[in-house]
């Protein structure tokens, strides 16, 4: 048996393997609705599919990106109206290549990041229960509840800060509007650019629509007087439909991030 270590120059590009993708993009179709007129944010009855993660960018204005990082850090003021401390922290997270990202430790994909987390999500409308569930396939394989029964947010001592916070929702014509408070500070709320800062004062307003069958439209308004100088709105972005079932994904199953080969913590 031959054991051989060779170190070579990779002078050429390593082209992607020529393998077939399991599914083609589904044909264009209009926005689906339930019999009562509500927008259907999931598959057709008897069908399958989920919202795949996309490269959604949480930024007030367009900026040039290099993956999850600002191509030019001097563009930082185009991203959001940061308070000085929040800007410094965001830039630190960017400059250190997101090495401390809680997401890499399998923490909840909360805030706007839920809509860009790898392996996607499903939105399950349960009108008989007056709630909508957002099932995140990626990260910790967790779910978030949006109450649509008209209840208010808890206040004062009743607020228990959590990753997903407390969310209530209502429909404005074809758009689901979700209002959330009660977040903890143990997650980074964006994956692109990675490392956007928030505090437990975050008040998040999300507007979700389905302009056609294959597209989920997402827009977030960030109202966090602890981290920003004024409320601001991220540019809306689209999330593509994937016509296959979402997969089981428990990030904690064998997460070796930050560990060396022998399982010890990397220095």
């Amino acid at each position, binding site marked *: 048996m031959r*054991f051989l270590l060779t170190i070579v120059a990779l002078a050429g590009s390593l082209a992607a*393997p020529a393998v077939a993708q399991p599914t083609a993009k589904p044909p264009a179709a209009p926005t689906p609705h339930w019999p009562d007129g509500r927008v259907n944010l999931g598959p057709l009855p008897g069908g399958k599919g989920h919202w795949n993660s996309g490269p959604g960018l949480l930024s007030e204005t367009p900026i040039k*990106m290099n993956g999850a990082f600002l191509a030019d850090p001097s563009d930082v003021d185009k991203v959001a109206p940061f308070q000085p401390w929040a800007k410094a922290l965001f830039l630190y997270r960017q400059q250190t290549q*997101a090495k401390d990202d809680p997401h890499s430790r399998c923490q909840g994909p909360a805030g706007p990041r839920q809509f860009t987390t790898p392996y996607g999500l499903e939105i399950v409308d349960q009108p008989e229960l007056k709630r909508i569930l957002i099932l995140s396939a990626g990260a910790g394989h967790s779910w978030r509840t949006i109450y649509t029964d008209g209840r208010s947010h808890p206040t004062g001592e009743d607020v228990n800060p959590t990753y997903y916070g407390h969310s209530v929702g209502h429909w404005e014509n074809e758009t689901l509007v979700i209002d959330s408070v009660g977040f903890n500070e143990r997650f980074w709320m964006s994956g692109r650019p990675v490392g956007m800062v928030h505090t437990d004062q975050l008040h998040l307003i999300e507007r979700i629509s389905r302009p056609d069958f294959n597209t989920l439209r997402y827009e977030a308004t960030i109202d966090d007087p602890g981290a920003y100088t004024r409320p601001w709105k991220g540019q809306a972005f689209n999330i593509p439909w994937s016509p296959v079932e979402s997969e089981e994904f428990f990030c904690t199953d064998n997460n070796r991030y930050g560990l060396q080969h022998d399982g010890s913590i990397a*220095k």
Partner: protein
Amino acid sequence: MRFRAIGSMSVALGMLLASTPVSTHHSFSAEYDITKPIKLQGLVTKVEWMNPHTYFYINVKDENGKVTNWALEMGAPGALQKQGWTRNTLQIGDDVTVEASLAKDGSDKANASAVYKGGKKLGAASSYSAGN
């Protein structure tokens, strides 16, 4: 270590472009260095077909005969399946060649971008995508 030293030398010789970008649960550049490509050949000793990343391990013998066990990270099982893999694609004892990027922490770990088995090139659903 000699592997890393030699791997660094190869940086000047070529530019590595990874396979299909796949977003995963951590920043590639937080853990791996795309400018330090390495090519390894050896026998598979273990396969962890698990989330959030599939790992496999190979025994690699250097020019002095010393055997080192390397850990190679790939994408999640679901992402690999989209590139034609199954859970049985790699078996213990398989003789494979791997193109990968070295870990920044200096351990015997690398992020695979391509795996060659029996002359066939397989993707690795690497977490590398331009700039991250």
